[in-house]
């Protein structure tokens, strides 16, 4: 990712001492579309869940230094630089020491599909260390800790089959061509090897949950698996139809999104991590390993706009069918397979990232009333139909049910897009999205057999609009406001133009943009709202919620202020980490990623902003 790295122009980092938490931006994501791993720039895998994204972790050093890691790095002090191999999700980290230079290649290999004669494990994390200059000593430390770090494993040598993890609830093997020894005291495998120019060593961590493990050979065969994985990602990326500006960041964003898309259900995760804090040491730590209905419109827009129709279709299938358990009421979020019970728990045994506690799993916001999600759902389906998709009878009935549900509920106060844990309010954005729900349903009913009374929907749309314009707009500040009869700003109102409630250039939207700019901009970034003025019921502060700044760019582009939008977008791009990834938030002053990482909502907002910039300029 030359773009982000070049714009940032930051010296390569020195390796942190063992025990220190790397910055969140020091991680890069690899995966196989069933689970993912975060690899630090210091050569350590510090987050990975098995058998899928939302399951318990096996490596969780990102949340507690003793909760599991898999590290490969030089013994002597080093500098590290890294990048993905072209347009793929295969990561290369280059270590430079006083005596030599080594390249570490990390990937989760992809199976050859159903045509091969050879068996393939459920997951393989393959690591290749190769000395490209001089000589250096590398150190390996393999310390899996299942169940979020609660279990310490033993290891049994299986001869040429490598090391099997014992006392483990599933089959896990490490096969390496480096001599390893069992450090029983620290429940890990360790080893050192002095390598000279041209020397290559392999480490293959394989996992199978229910059946006998499949062990894969090292050497040329392992190189073949890396090549095949690189080839798969390149072929996938070749389908990208975007040829506008900032292509590198757009492609990196869609690659990250693909990594967060569960291949066996089509669901798209909000992020592959839990409890990375919104501010250093703060308590706003949430589990994002679920699928938010709210993200759906932007996710589908990203897939469709870039030409990934298959992914868009799979996602829509998930959206329409995995959510059946709660029809016609939709939950705020579901797990990968549509599971609705996502009770929140605290993992008190974990220290948290740099002491940020509590570490939470599950998400208590899952059963909140957030009315805006129906608007995003209906917009997603509308986009899908506009792109040539069709709806069957069951889906039409479901949409009619959603319409009836929203007609019943839209007058109720809710927790709003920001999932506040305080008293429900009449949030303006939620009401506007109810308008979007009924408006899109009315349009869909024009082309599909959806049993709704279109004139009734039109009347309700008018009533909602009249209410928003009188109580959700404050004449004194000339802006739409966060909730009825108040004067608080809210960055989500930038999306009113995106969802077609208001036109970008019209005075009330211009006023809203200016009010947000005056009140919510800090350090050239936009915060969601003013937590000091409108209590959200959650302790602690936060940094800049990254998608808001991209929404502002998109708003400006759609309002015709191309130059300002372009400057804003380019500045935001410099806040990506060195491999082009964004987290949920951007830290004030340092502009480093904070919060769960990487975050799908940020990346789809980036894609949407880039497309708006490109399309408006072309238009």
């Amino acid at each position, binding site marked *: 990712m030359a773009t982000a790295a070049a714009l940032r122009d930051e010296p390569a980092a020195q390796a942190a001492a063992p025990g220190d938490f790397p910055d969140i931006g020091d991680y890069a994501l690899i995966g196989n579309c069933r689970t993912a791993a975060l690899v630090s720039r210091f050569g350590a895998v510090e987050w990975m869940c098995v058998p899928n994204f939302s399951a318990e972790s096996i490596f969780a050093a990102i949340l507690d230094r003793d909760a599991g890691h898999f590290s490969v790095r030089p013994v002597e002090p080093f500098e590290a630089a890294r990048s993905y191999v072209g347009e793929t999700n295969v990561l290369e980290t280059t270590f430079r020491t006083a005596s030599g230079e080594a390249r570490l290649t990390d990937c989760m290999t992809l199976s050859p599909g*159903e045509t*091969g*004669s*050879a*068996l*393939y494990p459920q997951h393989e994390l393959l690591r290749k260390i190769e000395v490209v200059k001089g000589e250096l000593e590398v150190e390996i430390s393999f310390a899996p800790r299942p169940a979020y770090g609660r279990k310490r494993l033993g290891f049994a040598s*299986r*001869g*040429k*089959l490598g090391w*099997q993890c*014992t006392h483990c*609830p*599933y*089959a896990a*093997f490490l*096969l390496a061509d480096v001599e390893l020894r069992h450090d029983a005291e620290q429940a890990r495998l360790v080893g050192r090897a002095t390598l000279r120019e041209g020397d290559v060593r392999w480490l293959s961590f394989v996992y*199978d949950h*229910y*059946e*006998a*493990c*499949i*062990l*894969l*050979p090292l050497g040329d*065969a392992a190189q073949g698996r890396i090549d095949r994985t690189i080839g798969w990602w390149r072929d996938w990326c070749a389908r990208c139809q975007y040829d506008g500006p900032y292509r590198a960041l757009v492609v990196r964003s869609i690659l990250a999104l693909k990594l967060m898309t569960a291949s066996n259900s089509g669901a798209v995760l909000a992020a592959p991590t839990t409890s990375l804090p919104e501010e250093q040491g703060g308590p706003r730590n949430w589990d994002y390993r679920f699928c938010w209905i709210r993200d759906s419109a932007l996710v589908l827009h990203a897939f469709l706009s870039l030409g990934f129709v298959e992914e868009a279709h799979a996602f829509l299938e998930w959206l329409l069918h995995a959510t059946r358990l709660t029809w016609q009421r939709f939950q705020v979020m579901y797990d990968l397979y549509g599971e609705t019970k996502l009770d929140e728990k605290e993992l008190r045994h974990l220290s948290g990232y740099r002491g940020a506690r509590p570490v939470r799993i599950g998400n208590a916001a899952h059963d909140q009333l957030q009315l805006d999600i129906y608007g995003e759902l209906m917009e997603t389906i509308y986009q899908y139909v506009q792109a040539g998709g069709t709806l069957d009878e069951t889906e039409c009935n479901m949409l009619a049910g959603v319409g009836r549900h929203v007609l019943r509920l839209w007058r109720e106060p809710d927790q709003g897009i920001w999932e506040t844990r305080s008293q429900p309010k009449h949030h303006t954005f939620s009401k506007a999205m109810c308008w979007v729900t009924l408006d899109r349903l009315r349009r869909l009913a024009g082309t599909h057999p959806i049993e709704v009374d279109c004139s009734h929907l039109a009347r309700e749309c008018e009533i909602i609009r009249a209410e928003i314009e009188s109580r959700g707009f404050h004449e004194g500040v000339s802006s739409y406001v966060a909730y009825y009869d108040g004067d608080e700003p809210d960055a989500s109102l930038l999306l009113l133009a995106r969802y077609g409630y208001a036109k970008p250039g019209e005075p009330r939207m211009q006023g809203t943009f200016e009010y947000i700019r005056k009140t919510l901009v800090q350090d050239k970034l936009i915060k969601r709202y003013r937590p000091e003025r409108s209590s959200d019921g959650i302790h602690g502060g936060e940094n800049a919620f990254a998608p808001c700044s991209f929404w502002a760019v998109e708003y400006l582009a759609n309002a015709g202020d191309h130059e300002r939008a372009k400057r804003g977008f380019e500045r935001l791009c410099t806040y990506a980490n060195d491999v082009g990834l964004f987290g949920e938030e951007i830290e004030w002053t340092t502009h480093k990623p904070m919060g769960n990482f990487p975050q799908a909502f940020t990346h789809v907002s980036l894609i949407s902003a880039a497309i708006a910039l490109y399309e408006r300029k072309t238009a």
Partner: protein
Amino acid sequence: MTQTGNEIIIILIWGFAATAALSGVMFAAQRLGYSRLSLPFLIGTMFTGERSSANAAGLLVYLMGGWLFAFVYYFVFASIGRTGWWLGALLGAAHGFVLLVMALPLLPHLHPRMASEYEGPGGDRTLQPPGFLALNYGYRTPLTTILAHAVYGAILGAQLAVT
């Protein structure tokens, strides 16, 4: 129908039921995390490297094997002239024990996709070998395997009458 015909049908019916029960216990042990031993998977992977086909083919062969062993059990009961669920369970436990100590450790030499600790994985040989008592598939594997076979034997012992 002749008496022999009736006996064959009874053996086939109860052989199927006993195999289903055996598979049920083994499958439950797998899903509950007690063991990773799946005999249908091990058998199926002798024929194909594709997981779902291997499981399906393995289950079919396994069912045939279950029927075949039902006849073996019948002949054992007939040769000693008595039957009963406890005798069947004992025979089943012995069957499971032999499987664990003799048959499974031999697999790396017979199975075309099974790796061995002496040669490591290579080519198509990538499947983890079971090891002594199939302990490589989890330390509770001997217990669950013997229990499953005891259930198989107990059903046959309880249902097959010998003259």
